[in-house]
Each structure stands twice: as C-alpha cells, then as structure tokens.
C-alpha cells in the first residue's frame, strides 16, 4: 500500500511539474510580490504576517483551487474515473495524488518568504516564519482538500472552475459583513483566502486581537482533518471497501475542533462588536474625535502622581493637584475616567458614571486655590476600538504580553470631558510622574526616559504608556528619539535620518514649543495607510526640547511628516514651509497642511499654486479656494494635475484676481 501511495505521489508530482504554466505562474507570482513589497520598508515579520504574506496566501489559494480542480478532475476528464474505481486499491492512490498536489502548492508560499528574507533582519524573519508557514499551509491544505472532496463526491466539471473562482471572490467579500455584530461573527471566519486585514502590530504582534487568530487557525485545522477523513471515507465507500475506525475518529475529531473554534470565535466576535457599537458596556467605549476642539475649562490639573501596579488586576493610585484657574469658586470639577476602572477610595466626595468622574469638594474651590485629590481605583483594562473589515481590537489594554494605555481612553482622570476623546482640554501643562510596577516588559512613555518604571516630566499635557518585550528607544540624532523595535529600527533609521537632518531646522522654526510627539498606536490619523510611513508616525518620539505636546501640535507634526513622506525628496515641502514662513497662521498650521493634503491630494503643482495664493492673499484667499476645491473634489479627482491647476487658475481669476 505504501509503495502504491508513493508511486501515485511521484507520478502526480511529475504531472504537475511538467506543466509549463505551473512554473510560469510561480515566476510571475514571485516577480509580482517582490516588486510590489520589496521596495517598502516593512520588517520581515510584518511582511510574513501582514501585507505580502496575506497577499501570497490569497493568490495562493486561488491558484491552489485551479490546480487542485485540474489535478483532481484528470481521471474524470479523461473518461478513466470508472476504470480507476475498479482498480483493486484503496484510498492510497487518491491520497498519493492529494499529497503530491499539496506538496506542489507549497512553493506558492515562496514569494512571501523571499521578500521577507530580503527585507530582514534575520531575527524578525525567523520570528515570523513559523506562523506564516502554519497559516499558509492550513489555507492551501484546506483548499486542496475541499476541491478533492468535491471531485470524489460529485465530480469536477469544467464549469466548476468558474464556480470555484466565484467562491474565492465571495470569501474575500465576506469583509463586507465584518462590522455587523451578528452576521460578521459567523461569516468572517469563512474567508479561507486570508486576503485582507491581518491586524499585525510591530510592537504587540497580535496581542491586540486576543485569541481570534488562533481560533481561526483552529477552525481551519479542524476543517483540514474533517475533509481528510471525508475524502478517505468517500473513496473507500465508492470502491466498496471497509473504512477504518481511525478515519471516523479523525473525521469526528476534526468536526468537533472546527465547530468548537468556529463557535467560540463567533460568540467572542459578537461580544466585542456589540460592545464597541453599543456604548453602554462598562468595559468598552468608543474613542472619537469631536468636530471642534473643546474650549479650556476654568480649572486645570497642575500635578499628577500616578502609581500603577499591573502584577495582578491593574491597580491605580493617583494624586493630583486641581487648580481653579477661573474667577469664581467651583462647587464641582469634572474629569473623564474610564468606567471599567472602579474607584475604591477617594479623598473627596465623588460620583463616577458614564466615564465621567465628578468631584465635589466639601467647600467650593476658590479662585486661584489648589485642591489635592487622592484616588485609588482598579479594574481590567481592555478597551476595544472599531477596525474596518475586522473584529474590534484592543486599542488600550493591560495584558501580561503587552501594555498599551492611550491617553484618550482616560485611564487617569483627564480634565473636563465625559466622552472618550483624543483632544485635551487641560488649560495648562502639568508636572506628571508615572511609576509602573509589577511587569518585566520594556516600558516607554511620552514623559521621557523612564528608569525602573518611573517616568516624569515637567510640562506635559497628557501621558501615554506602552509596554512590550520588543519595544526599545533609540536616539536617532540629537533632539530626536525614536521608539521602535529591533526589527524595524535599521530601516527606520535609514528612512528618517535624511528627513530630520534636512528638516529639523525648519521644524524647529514652526514648532518652537516644547513637545514630544507620537504615541505608538495613534491610528486615528486617517491619512496614512498601513505601511512604513504610518509606522513612523506611530514610532516617533520627537524630543526637540524635553517635554510633551498638545494634541494640536501632534497633529501638526503628523501632517508635516505625512506630507514630507508623500514627496520623495521633500523639496516641495521645504518650498512650502519656506513660503509659509512669510505668514502667520490664524487656525494653526495643521489646518493649512490638512487642506493641502486633502484638497490637492498632495500633487506638487497644485500645492505650489495654493502656496502662491497664500503668499499673495493670506488665509483670506486660501480658505475659500480650498473650500471650493473640496466641494469640487469628485470632479477634480478625475483630472490630470495640469487641468487641476488650470481649474484653480480660473477660480483665482474669477474670485481673487491675479496671484
């Protein structure tokens, strides 16, 4: 039997390897993946787990569908299926071919491996390889087995190639159901192609996704066992041969594993989706950006002393000085504080509901007076955010594998707002000290270089904390510190050094305030896609002087760098900044940069024309032009750059006269 199996294996392998189209497709796939992903500065692990790897799996499953259908249907196509059934052999003949086909499909993974190896570094490559091999192997095996089962039951016909392609397309389009709390939960795991969002993060890998990736792998591992058992059962039965009890055990085991993982996946998906979409869950709320920045309130916190113990259930002790900055006494002061964190003790009377903490001192807080408040609170921090075309992910969390505490989720009392918001209304910077105990993770914060888990800064508007075994801080150059991992820092350094060498003097002129930029997971910036440029934004800590930034400055710099990244040589941006240096900004530079970015799609000629208008007419001329461009965006978007400039010139001539 073994000999028959091996002979069938070798013969099938020879059949496939003799097809020139097989090698042509392999070559084309490698060329496409390497040319598409080889030029970006991804780390090897990210390439294997996210972009290139997902693409290889997606295209690989399509190719596997076609090759499997072609190979499995060969006997029937050649009118030899009945003759084969009459041969005095069991399932070993089919299994030999089946395993040969699986073997022949494995090289389809090679393009992902090649591009990842080219990107390096080796440590990142080896870290990512096992999961990539496992997941792509599961996907390819599932596809091959499913097609083979189709052949041994109903038979492959020519029109089924089209049907299989339509199923493949349908699997990809399951993402359209992703945001629905019920159907998304049960439809999303059916995307056997794995094409699409992967949720990889360079700092926390897949910690933010919880158990979802492994439940999905379990589901497909179960299906592979189930299909394998069904194929053997169907072949043996068709040939009137006995079926071994082991086949039943494998089939039943596969069915149980698949159903179990599918069920748990679906239920958890519904839970998290439900939490994010319906605000009332105490554990989960949405961070959102209000349309306008809130006005500062008549009180501010001038000092925070935060102690966080993460050894068991996270426990916080916060001491803060609240200053009445207004002219009238305050009977109560409000802060945002996450509902999931339950207050155990407080030095002043309080009320905590709907993410809002209200303190009511026994005597009203007089103008200019400072009140020292001490709070103890704790609870599990697992703050989920909506992710397009995927299950919600934790954006702020404390787990043994990683810590991510974004200021916007209000894990410490933030001045004045009840909704979770990235904006800051603390009227003045505070002295903030954060001491973290109970973890071996490497910790970083915007408060500077912490030693022994203690971070401290004099003039900070906010505080965020990140912890990971992979995370490091690297001094890129004087005044610029980068938070990154070993796997991405070499590329990050190559990428950032020329940018900051050239533009640091310009940036200092525009951002003279003391600030520190960037939390590693500020993914709310909608103008950056998931590539190295976005990782830079997440990774940057620009420490020009020594302290913190307001949200406005953070977005200013984000736009600055986004624009700079958009232009290959940054010449246009330097020109932009030189021209802008002639004026003052009523609404802040981020307003200007935002509109340049969104209204002109950052095309150099259109940007330059906008700058000309600014130089001649200031914001009074620029804002109406930008507004008109945004209103006509659907039409302008279709036009070549020269015609957009011509459209702008016509508008300028009609509304402003000459520039």
């Amino acid at each position, binding site marked *: 039997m073994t000999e028959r199996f091996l002979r069938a294996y070798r013969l099938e392998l020879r059949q496939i390897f003799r097809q020139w189209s097989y090698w042509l497709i392999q070559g084309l796939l490698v060329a496409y993946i390497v040319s598409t992903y080889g030029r970006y500065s991804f780390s090897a692990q990210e390439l294997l787990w996210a972009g290139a790897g997902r693409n290889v799996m997606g*295209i690989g499953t399509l190719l596997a569908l*076609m090759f499997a259908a*072609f190979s499995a249907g060969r006997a029937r196509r050649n009118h030899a299926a009945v003759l084969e059934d009459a041969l005095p052999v069991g399932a070993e003949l089919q299994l030999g071919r089946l395993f040969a086909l699986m073997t022949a499909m494995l090289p389809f993974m090679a393009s992902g491996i090649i591009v990842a190896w080219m990107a390096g570094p080796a440590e990142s490559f080896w870290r990512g390889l096992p999961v990539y091999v496992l997941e792509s192997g599961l996907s390819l095996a599932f596809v091959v087995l499913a097609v083979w089962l189709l052949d041994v039951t109903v038979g492959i016909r*020519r*029109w089924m190639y*089209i049907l299989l392609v*339509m199923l493949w397309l349908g699997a990809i389009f399951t993402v359209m159901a992703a945001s629905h709390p019920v159907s998304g939960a049960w439809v999303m795991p059916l995307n056997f192609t794995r094409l699409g969002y992967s949720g990889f993060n360079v700092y926390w890998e897949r910690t933010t996704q919880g158990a979802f990736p492994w439940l999905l792998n379990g589901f497909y591992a179960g299906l592979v066992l189930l299909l394998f058992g069904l194929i053997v059962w169907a072949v043996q039965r068709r040939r009137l041969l006995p079926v071994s009890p082991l086949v039943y055990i494998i089939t039943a085991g596969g069915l149980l594993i698949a159903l179990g993982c599918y069920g748990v996946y679906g239920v958890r998906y519904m839970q998290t989706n439900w939490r994010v979409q319906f605000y009332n869950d105490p554990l989960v709320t949405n961070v959102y950006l209000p349309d306008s920045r809130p006005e500062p309130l008549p009180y501010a916190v001038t000092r925070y002393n935060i102690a966080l113990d993460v050894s068991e259930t996270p426990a916080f002790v916060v001491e803060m000085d609240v200053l009445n900055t207004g002219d009238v006494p305050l009977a109560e002061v409000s802060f945002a504080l996450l509902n999931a964190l339950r207050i155990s003790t407080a030095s002043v009377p309080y009320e905590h509901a709907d993410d809002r903490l209200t303190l009511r001192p026994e005597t009203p807080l007089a103008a200019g007076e400072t009140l020292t408040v001490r709070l103890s609170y704790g609870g599990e921090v697992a703050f989920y955010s909506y992710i397009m075309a995927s299950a919600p992910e934790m954006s702020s969390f404390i787990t043994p594998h990683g810590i991510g505490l974004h200021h916007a989720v209000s894990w410490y009392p933030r001045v004045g707002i009840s909704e979770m918001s990235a904006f800051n209304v603390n009227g003045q910077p505070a002295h903030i000290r954060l001491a973290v105990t109970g973890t071996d993770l490497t910790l970083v914060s915007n408060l500077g270089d912490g030693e022994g888990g203690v971070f401290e800064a004099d003039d900070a508007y906010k505080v965020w904390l990140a912890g990971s075994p992979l995370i490091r801080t690297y001094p890129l150059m004087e005044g610029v510190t980068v938070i990154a991992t070993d796997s991405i820092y070499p590329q990050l350094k190559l990428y950032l050094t020329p940018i900051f060498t050239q533009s640091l003097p310009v940036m200092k002129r525009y951002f003279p305030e003391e600030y520190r930029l960037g939390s590693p997971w500020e993914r709310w910036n909608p103008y950056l896609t998931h590539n190295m440029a976005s990782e830079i934004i997440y990774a940057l800590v620009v420490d020009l002087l020594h302290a913190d930034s307001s949200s406005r400055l953070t977005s200013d710099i984000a736009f600055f760098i986004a624009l700079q990244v958009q232009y290959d040589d940054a010449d246009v941006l330097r020109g932009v900044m030189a021209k802008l240096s002639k004026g003052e900004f009523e609404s802040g530079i981020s307003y200007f940069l935002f509109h340049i970015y969104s209204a002109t799609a950052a095309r150099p000629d259109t940007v330059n024309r906008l700058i000309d208008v600014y130089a001649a007419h200031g914001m009074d001329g620029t804002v109406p032009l930008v507004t008109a461009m945004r209103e006509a965006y659907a039409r302008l*978007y*279709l036009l*070549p750059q020269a015609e957009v400039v011509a459209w702008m010139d016509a508008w300028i001539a009609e509304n402003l006269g000459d520039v």
Partner: protein
Amino acid sequence: MYKPVAWYEAKVIHGFSALLPALILPAFAAIGILAWKPYGHVPSMEDVLGLFIMALPLIGGLASAHLMSIEREENFDALRRSYPEPSWRLPLVRLAGTALLLALSVTACLLLLRVVGCYYTVDEVVRPALPATLFMMALAQLVNNLTGSQPVGVVAAVGYWVMEMQTGGEYTGILYLFRAAGGISDYTPEQNGAALLTAAFALLALNVGWSIRRRSMGG
C-alpha cells in the same frame, strides 16, 4: 448554413462557464432589491457606475476564459480545424457570443435596478466600463488559446483583475482597468478608454493570428 452554425456556437459558448459569471450582475441587483427596497434606498449613479466598472471586466474575463480551448478539451480539435471555415472566424464569433451574453446580463441588471428606482441609462453607467471589459475578454481569450487550458485562462483573468485592484494601475499605467471610476492619474478617462480599446483589438488580432498559425502548423 449559418443557422446550424450559430445554434452550435451558441450552445458551446453559453454553457455554465459563461452563464455563471453572467449571473453575477443580476444576482447582485436582486440581492440589492432585497437589501435596499425595504429602506427606500436608491443607489447613486456613482455607485452603479462603480459596480459596472469593477465587476464587468472580471465577468467578461471569466466568461471568455474557456472559449478557445473547448475543442481541445473535448478532444475534437483536429476535426474542427479541418472544417472549411476561415481561421479568423472562430475567435470573433466566440467573442461576439460572449458579448451578447454580457449584454443580456447587463440589461437584466439594469432592469432589476429599476425596481429600486435606478433609472440610469447604459450610456451613463455601462459605457465607461466597456473598454476595460473588452480588454479583459480579449486577454482571457488569448491566454486560453495560447495555453489550451481553461484554468490558466481563469487565473489570468482573475489574477490580472486582482493585481489592478491592489496596485491601482501602477504596472499598467494608461491601461489601468478602473480609471473610469476616478482616482489620481496622468491620463484622462478618454485616453485610458482609447488605449484599452486599442490594446483589446491588438490582443484580439494576436488571438486570430495564433489561431491561423495553429491551423497552418497543423498542431
């Protein structure tokens, strides 16, 4: 004489391999009726245009991926090549037959969309998608003819379409399939449409040329 030939070609062309992709558009419209009608939602012209621009080239490619290998896969290729017919006729007749099927599919889709209040004309929502559709049909047909294999033709059509979706025309430039849907480009939709039509006719000519060569070589 032409009637039996047309009847035979219609049967060969309009098998499940062509009918299945042709059903995508009517099926989408039917599902759309179920989803939109209860809420009174009327898809905008841009939405419907986007649907045709994205879907029609793929459907055309899939429906054409088997046309030139039917005789070879059914093992009567040599017999067919002995027929007293011009070599250029087979590729053109099969392309025309598929085009007819697609026209029926588009018509059914547009009629169904009227149920939810979409009274858009062919000129408004279908015409911009035609150059890319013809290009994909010619491409799939040529690959199918060169390889004699339907799966390879299918992979070529879907692979090309996916590559265009993913790269936004980075490798194809003026031949970008979805230029008519908008986006940043140095080419106008008219230039793009003209280039696609030219390329489609070039591929068709290659297809005809290859058919003539196969007959003359006897292989």
